[in-house]
């Protein structure tokens, strides 16, 4: 069993990435159980607050998955996510939270394999990084 205490929260957009994760499931692809997924309507719904909350609750990584550029069900939510996440990453780096702890990627509804690959890679990265160095409160 992997370093099980490490948790990664994944925000999946309803239209592509959530389906992609379902596809990984239907294909019985395996990834560590410490990736915990949450459905949002669009990657553009993910706000910095959610990511901070995940860290605060003890997660050591956050994965945000949306539709491929140009494919967002709401036209441009994923582009907005890019900007928001980039900004947050830079800010958190100042606080000593490594940028790799937040990953934004694109998974299409058909990309079960990609979902499983990204999930595995993410958990591996986070396990290497170990727990967050910064303490909230």
């Amino acid at each position, binding site marked *: *069993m992997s370093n*099980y205490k490490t*948790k990664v*929260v994944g925000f999946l957009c309803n239209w592509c990435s*959530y*389906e992609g*994760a*379902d596809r*990984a*499931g*239907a294909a*019985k*692809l*395996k*990834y*560590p*159980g*410490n990736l*915990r*997924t*949450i*459905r*949002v*309507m*669009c990657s*553009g*719904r*993910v*706000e910095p*607050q*959610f990511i901070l*909350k*995940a860290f605060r*609750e*003890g*997660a050591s990584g956050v994965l945000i998955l949306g539709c491929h550029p140009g494919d967002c*069900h*709401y*036209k*441009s*939510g994923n582009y*907005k996510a890019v900007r*928001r996440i980039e900004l947050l990453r830079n800010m958190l780096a100042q606080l000593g939270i490594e940028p790799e702890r937040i990953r934004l990627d694109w998974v299409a509804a058909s990309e079960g394999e990609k979902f*499983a690959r990204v999930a595995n890679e993410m958990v591996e990265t986070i396990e290497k990084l170990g727990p967050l160095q910064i303490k909230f409160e």
Partner: protein
Amino acid sequence: MAERTGVFICRCGPNIGNSIDVNAVMQEVGRMEEVEFVTDHNLLCSQEGKAFVTEQIKKNNLDRVVIAACTPKQYEQLFMNACRDAGINPFLMQMTNIREQCAWVTADRQEATEKALGFIKAAVSRVKLHESMEKKAIDASPDVLVVGGGVAGLESVLTLAQKGRKVYLVEKTPFIGGVGALLEDVYQTMECAPCMLAPELQEVLQKDNVEVYTHSELEDVVGSYGNFTVKIRKKARYVDIEACIGCNACFDPCPVDVPNLYDQGLSNRKAIYLPFMGALPNVPVIDSEHCMQLYGEECRLCEQACAFGAIRFDDHDEIVEKKVGAIVLATGADLMDPRSIPQYGYGRYENIYSAMELERLYASNGPTGGNIIMKNGKKPESVAFIYCVGRKEKGYCSGICCMYSVKLARHVQEKLPEARVYSLYDDLCLPKKESQVVYKKVKEEGIEFIRAGQSSTVTQAGDKLKVSYDSPIGRKEIIVDMVVLAPAMVPSGDILKLSELFDIPLDVYGFFEQEHLLMKPFGTPLEGVYIAGTCQGPKDIGDSVAQGGAAAGRILSRLVPGEKLELETKVANINEEICSGCRICIGMCPFSAISRDIEKSISVVDETLCRGCGTCSAACPTGAAIARHYTCEQILKEIEGVVQ
């Protein structure tokens, strides 16, 4: 009153039951304060399972429900219905996916069990914050505005009108039929275009429930899906449509002569004119720019010639306002001006024609009555067609140029059997099942097909034209009398104005961007506004008609007279108390659903336009923009739950 939450865990036969220790999960979940009732079931999605959920909700007096089962994508609706049947609001249910995103993907049973527990805890704490929601419905006008009277628009009009809908058709030219009406015949059937279109045009003009505004433009649009108010500028025609009988006696006396652009400038027309013989409605129009009387010089010759008193020099533009529920934009496209690619010599040398010019030359209602003669009055003895003009420059294949070029080449050969006809192509794009037959026939008729890539250049050679091109054995050339260019289809000149008027996007090529290329090619990001035909991208007549019909069908099925318009439930709203009026959300919304309430200095959401993506909520600095059913509080609770 404390919530009474019930948790139903589906074993899905062995699918969940074998990978997750359901009993252990039930025990843990049962300890949660909010949980009143927890149970497992072998197959919740079965008839019996659904009934079980309904029954247990009632029996245990539950007011919140968590279903831990497969992906909500599959059976969310079913369980929502089960809740409704039990008398509780379906939005007070949360499904959590312990199959696709847990049991099936987690190798270790212990890990899977803990993950499932996390998911269920998250759902329990989230569902506590759910709000009851009802599907909203608004009154809507079933009437429709169609902009553009080409084949796509006409199909929309007729599909709607045949079902009794009131339709307003706005066409910027003085006649209807679009480009199709200017053609002699059509690929692939090679049938007579005016004959094919005439019955449709007549039907549109004669239907009581269709109001046709030719020589008119859309001036303004406000409102949203179900309730648009549109302003149509009805330009002065100076001829009374009711009084005119279409005898054309007014043309001859008119002293003005100007190039007729409907004939691509290959013929002249008067200041009072019909674009071409047979144009419908058969009522001339006075071109105010060139009419002497309207210019201020006393003339009135047409007025004197009219036996029916149909000339109206005092006519003026009129603004007509209409209320409609939906709008179809079928505003067509143009062919690229080949002047912009100098290698083809267009505009520099005589006897180089664009495809549309040749279309008019061989049309029996065209400038030469259908005779293919050059400007010097001679018939060409040799003609070279150059395909794919502008393909490289535009970056796309229009998909119709090969078809119309093959058609034109064939007609030239038919009309001038002695002539030598060449076709210089890059890649032949002749899709659809009938095309190869046509192509084969054309080849048999002796037209020479030469693969020249994009390498052709045209220069003057005495009184002839020299076309040179790359061949596998080096540069080659042919000398011809006439060259015909097949230019790419490009967005029409007024598309930018329309895109701004409606605030709907254009794609990288400048055509209207569809909602989804494959699944909703007729939709736009703006609810209730549809696109059809070549304004969405190059396409042939058949595809344009299909899209026009599809857009109309969509309207018929969604906007039904006497029925209210159902709106998306999970929309955003703005908390008036805390909105600071910063307007960030207004710029964020991809569907222009948020606007400013000037009096209150806050943002407001138009629920008819909002599709519930939540990006406004993510951007709002004060938390005033709330994405219903995906609120901050709900998601934060969910985060807590899954991480525990």
